[in-house]
């Protein structure tokens, strides 16, 4: 590979040594500070696995039960730790099984490096056994990808991979290594990548834009902040909190922004979006200045763009220039690293309080509480609700747990009601909505934050998409807590069928297996709860458990998640029932 295009700096191991490409892969990972990877072996990656055996004391490999599980575990690890997750697989089916996780990481900006084995160079293009064009397949869903066909290119390719995955707006990178390159010997030395001439990870901040933003914020009567995961990725949680407090601005989060600001913060007004809170959605169309920070105006957040915040002047703090004006026309775009731009903004912002404006949020909250929240969290009916389970978990963990949710009704309920005291606590598949994400992601999350409680909230549908990862939990003894909220339906789809398809429940009813027996088969302590009186005790037992624990809660079958903005409707049309 050309080196005038990359800036590489020598790390400790200066002296070059003659080693195989496979060993070089491991040494590169170690140079990047990686001590844990997820993967699954197979023919085309076997030389690397052979080296993993030799280096097993320095580099821990977790054998998942499916390559998709390896990617989600790497994602969960990355999301809680802020480090790059690593997943490895063989060629062909191993590589294609990574694609869902890669696409998920791409749309949710998760730093991940995937390493795949490939058939030997001389067989490329011959439809050899287990040959797939994984570079071609993964191109649209990777931040970068590269095929290595000779050993000498491995260090530069991996150095670039890690640099690209974690810098700027993070994302997944795939490095495909032909088997001959793994066997070849060459003189190894490692240089970390610190720059690529065609790649500008962070746009340079324009102080004039920051000043413009400050002036607009200072003149606003009803300013409103909507923040996203960019705040977490940019490590700007403190700056966000200071801004909100200093200028007295009410704030709401996107799904992925949750936990960037403690849930209980008095100016944290809740969540925006399709199943977000009533006030944050409605008042988007009442504010005079909308300050978007590290978020990308996803359609699930905005609803109909023609009726979204048309009255407001829009300020967008963003690292990715391609996001500016992509969906919502901005008045002031503040490009750059959000920590840096907010730090510049803070001294320019006047202290303020917007009490009457904040009261509007509280009034809307009171309406939502009465119509929705009360019934979700403290139901008067006999059957258990998803909301009360989350509420009990909040009580028991105090809001200190990492909550990993899958996709569906339980996810929206978890995001709506889980209490988060600290950042990087909400791990969910936001942009792609990948069912099957939570169980493997919880494994990665626990390994990435071993001192924290990690609770996975999963539906009975999604659970069965990656249920095989119970094997990984059993083998690694990773103490994750698994809660399946069982409604015997693909609940979210059923809800849409009820609301928009006259209750024609086509293929959404699930005839489920005995989940307790399955968990027990993996020697994971398990309990099923069907009545309210058992719930507290079961959650206590689960949280108190030192090892993994499986809790199935049988909930009301046909509950719906509200508020709801039907697809294509305006944020002003947020329905409470």
């Amino acid at each position, binding site marked *: 590979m*050309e080196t005038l295009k990359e800036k590489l700096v020598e790390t400790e191991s200066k002296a070059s040594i003659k080693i195989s490409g496979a060993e070089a892969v491991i040494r590169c990972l170690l140079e990047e500070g990686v001590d844990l990877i997820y993967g699954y072996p197979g023919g085309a990656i076997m030389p690397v696995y052979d080296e993993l055996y030799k280096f097993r004391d320095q580099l821990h490999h977790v054998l998942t039960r499916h390559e998709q599980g390896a990617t989600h575990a790497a994602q969960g690890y990355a999301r809680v730790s802020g480090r790059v997750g690593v997943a490895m697989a063989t060629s062909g089916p191993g590589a294609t099984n990574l694609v869902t996780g890669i696409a998920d990481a791409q749309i949710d900006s998760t730093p991940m490096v995937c390493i795949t084995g490939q058939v030997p160079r001389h067989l490329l293009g011959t439809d050899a056994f287990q040959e797939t064009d994984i570079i071609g397949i993964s*191109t649209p869903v990777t931040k970068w990808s590269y*095929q290595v066909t000779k050993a000498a290119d491995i260090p530069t390719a991996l150095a670039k991979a890690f640099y690209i995955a974690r810098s700027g707006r993070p994302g997944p990178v795939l490095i495909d290594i032909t088997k001959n390159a793994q066997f070849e010997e060459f003189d190894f030395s490692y240089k970390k990548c610190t720059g690529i*001439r*065609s790649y500008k990870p962070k746009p340079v901040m324009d102080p004039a834009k920051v000043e413009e933003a400050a002036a607009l914020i200072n003149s606003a009567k009803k300013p409103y902040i909507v923040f996203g995961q960019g705040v977490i990725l940019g490590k700007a949680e403190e700056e966000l909190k200071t801004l909100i407090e200093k200028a007295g601005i009410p704030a709401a989060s996107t799904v992925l922004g949750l936990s960037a600001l403690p849930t209980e913060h008095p100016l944290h007004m809740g969540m925006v979006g399709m199943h977000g809170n009533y006030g944050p959605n409605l008042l988007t169309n009442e504010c005079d200045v909308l300050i978007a920070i590290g978020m990308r105006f996803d359609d699930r957040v905005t609803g109909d763009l023609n009726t979204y915040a048309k009255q407001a002047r829009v300020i967008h703090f963003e690292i990715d220039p*391609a996001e500016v004006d992509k969906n919502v026309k901005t008045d002031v775009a503040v490009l750059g690293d959000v920590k840096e731009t907010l730090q510049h903004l803070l001294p320019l912002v006047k202290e303020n309080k917007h009490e009457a404006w904040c009261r509007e949020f509280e009034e809307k909250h009171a309406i939502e509480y009465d119509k929705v929240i009360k019934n979700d969290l403290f139901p008067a009916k006999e059957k258990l609700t998803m909301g009360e389970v989350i509420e009990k978990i909040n009580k028991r963990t105090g809001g200190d747990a990492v909550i990993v949710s899958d996709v569906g009704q339980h996810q929206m309920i978890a995001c709506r009601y889980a209490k988060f005291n600290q950042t990087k606590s909400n791990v969910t598949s936001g942009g792609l909505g990948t069912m099957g994400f939570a169980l493997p992601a919880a494994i990665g999350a626990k390994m990435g934050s071993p001192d924290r409680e990690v609770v996975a909230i999963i539906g009975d549908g999604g659970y069965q998409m990656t249920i095989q990862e119970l094997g990984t939990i059993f083998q690694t003894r990773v103490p994750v807590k698994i809660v399946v909220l069982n409604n015997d339906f693909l609940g979210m789809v059923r809800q849409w069928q009820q609301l928009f398809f006259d209750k024609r429940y086509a293929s959404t009813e699930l005839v489920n297996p005995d989940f307790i027996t399955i968990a027990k088969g993996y020697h994971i302590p398990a309990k099923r709860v069907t009545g309210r009186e058992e719930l507290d005790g079961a959650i206590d037992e689960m949280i108190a458990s030192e090892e993994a624990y499986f809790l199935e809660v049988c909930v009301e079958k046909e509950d719906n998640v509200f508020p709801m903005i039907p697809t294509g409707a305006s944020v002003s049309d947020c329905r409470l029932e």
Partner: protein
Amino acid sequence: MNKTYTVSIYSENNIGLLSRISAIFLKRHINIESLTVSECEIEHVSRFVIVAAMDEDQVRKIVGQLEKQIEVIKAYYHTDEETIYQETALFKIKSDLLFDERQIQNIIKNSNANIVTVAREFFVIEKTGRRHETDALYDELAPFGIMQFVRSGRIAVSKAEMNISALLQEFQNA
């Protein structure tokens, strides 16, 4: 309103970039009308020239997505008025006609086309110009019979400056 835009991309010369670039158009269901890749004025830097019809909002977003690609140094878009552009067309015609049909020689002369080669069986005319010019020549030659016809993608330079060398220099000095 849809318009013809010329998108110019300066990039590192990398296998796979072409599919990344075409995927960006594909994902938005925009048809690439022509595409040309070549080395440019800077060593080891490639230049893509892509012509597609879309509205300005779309082309602006596409250029944003293009610039996000790791190997893309810079991307631009221009309207026809903002560029100097040309295409080349080749016409393969039966040799007899060159001698039997006096008219053909006049057509070639009047259209500023060149005869590239004359063989026993056929001769080849080259015409460089705007699309309507090569189209006009096609229409004139068609009645005589065209054995083969091919037209290149558009090549274009912008009237305004593109500061690629400065951009690359910046990296070298950083």
